[in-house]
């Protein structure tokens, strides 16, 4: 029953890295269900496996064992190129350090994921304008990242994350590099995307204030959800 309404279903996830010959278990027998349309925050100490879990959900990394089903797709069965295509259609990324391309304008950064689609130039422009309007930066579309504040850069990154209308947005410490005011603006924006546009948001954060914005808060410690 839970699977029918879950956008993310993880079962028996194990993830082990090797440092030389020594195995390091980061995630152990982890199960997780994320309901469609929820806004979840994942907290935990450094090294607890938060980012690894986020990467597995986003299709950037594969578990050592276990089943990963996200947005209806069994990620374990997909090749790297299939995963890349799947990510472009289903996942919106928000990174801690924004990760905008410095040689492209705000609009061009937002347009990047659309270059992988068959949309025409005018359709892409419309979508870019809409995404920038949603994040309140339509008037900054021709600015380069260096001409924007940190908060504005993150909002452009969020516009890039939603321009392809993904099913789920994964955010890795989205307020980690921002001052309080900019962080609040970004969190308010994520909340709006969740409540008004129905986007599922899975956010990794150290910040308790950020976590409070989420409807579900989870804690990960030593590779297991508490």
């Amino acid at each position, binding site marked *: 029953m839970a699977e029918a309404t879950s956008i993310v279903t993880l079962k028996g996830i194990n993830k082990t890295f090797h440092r030389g010959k020594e195995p390091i278990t980061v995630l152990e027998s982890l199960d997780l269900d994320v309901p469609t349309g929820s806004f979840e925050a994942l907290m935990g100490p450094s090294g607890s496996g938060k980012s690894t879990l986020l*990467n597995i959900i*986003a299709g*950037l*990394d594969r578990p050592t064992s276990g089943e990963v089903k996200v947005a209806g797709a069994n990620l374990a069965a997909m090749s*790297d*190129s299939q995963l*890349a*295509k799947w*990510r*472009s*259609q289903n996942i919106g*990324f928000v*990174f801690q350090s924004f*990760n905008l*391309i*410095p*040689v*492209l304008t705000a609009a*061009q950064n937002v*347009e*990047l*994921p659309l*270059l*992988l689609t068959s949309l025409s130039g005018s359709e892409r422009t419309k979508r870019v304008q809409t995404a920038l309007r949603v994040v309140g930066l339509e008037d900054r579309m021709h600015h380069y990242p260096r001409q924007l504040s940190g908060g504005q850069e993150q909002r452009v990154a969020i516009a*890039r994350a939603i321009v392809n209308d993904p099913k789920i947005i994964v955010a890795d410490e989205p307020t980690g590099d921002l001052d309080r005011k900019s962080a609040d603006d970004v969190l308010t924006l994520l909340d709006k995307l969740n409540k008004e546009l129905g986007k599922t948001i899975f956010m990794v954060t150290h910040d308790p204030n950020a976590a409070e914005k989420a409807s579900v808060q989870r804690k990960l410690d030593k590779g297991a959800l508490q």
Partner: protein
Amino acid sequence: MNIATYARRNLFRRKGRTILTILAVAVAVLIFGAIRTAVAMWNAGADEAAVDRLATRHKVSITMQLPKRYIDDVRKVPGIKAATWAVWFGGKDPKERTPFFAAFAADHNTWFDVLDEMSVPPDQLAKWKATPNGTILGDVLAKTLEVKVGDRLTINSDIYPGDWEFEVSGIYTPLRKTADRNSLVFHWDYLNNDPRNEFGKEQIGWVMSQISNASESASLSKAIDKIFDERDDQTVTMSERAFQLSFLGAFSAILTAFDLVSLVILLIMTMILANTIAMSVRERTHEYGVLRAIGFPPSYILGFILVEAVLIALVGGLVGIALTTLLINFGMGPFIEQNMAGLFPYFKTPPWVLMVALVAAGVLGGIAAIVPAIRASRHKVIDSLRRLD
């Protein structure tokens, strides 16, 4: 925006480095162009040799002479339209206005009929034929020796002793750009009858024949040589191109060195490009991770890097071509044609050399980027995202 926008914008991300790399490629193309021009111009005479002419010389060496009566035997061979002969004289200017020029004693009745790439006004040709000590020389040599038609000219030889006095009967101009404008020709009889030529009486250096059908070149060469097989002085007959290349053969070591230097220049250019691309790719590893994360497949990363490298190389190549054209065709070229006409009657970079240089730059740009591009495209996304340098 399209995919190429990103690759293009990356070009000038590090302006100083890109400009220096472009200049390095341009200089490499310039040096490559200059060397290839020198080699091409060196070979140009042979490359543009008439296909309907055969040269017959002594089988042992060009320095050995043939009996003059051989010319009659050659002329009787079916398929031979005309034949003439000459002896190498080796010209030197007593006033040393030029260190050396080609001078021949030739058959005045037939020389300009067979060597028809040189144009002599009919009245000057007639005058030459009627003047036993008459000479005709190239327009560049005439300018160098400061003579005009009707002047008297004294030259020396590195073979025959003393002063040799001539009357300038005519000045020839070339009908094809690679023809030597720096040579002099006079009557063979004048040399043959002079007592200073007592060891070369009734001897000729080589026979130059014009044939009716160029496709019969090989069979006619064999037919000519067969006539003299049983005689004391055997011959070897070859195409004019092969004849000219046999002279150039002495310089083959220099030409081989030029070829090697050309390759080294291209190798250096590739290494400079590879270094620039490797640095850029390393700096952008994190960024490529971001692109991969948002869905760009590895082939796009490979494409971005290769396109950027090829663009840098092509821009450098175009700058190099502009420099080569400017410096060689409008600078060095005219100077060399004026001052080294004996070696290089014509010195301009052929368009194919420029094209080869540009294509080589583009291809080598791609080759230089292939390893860093493949490595970047195969990097695991999460490893790339962790790299912050």
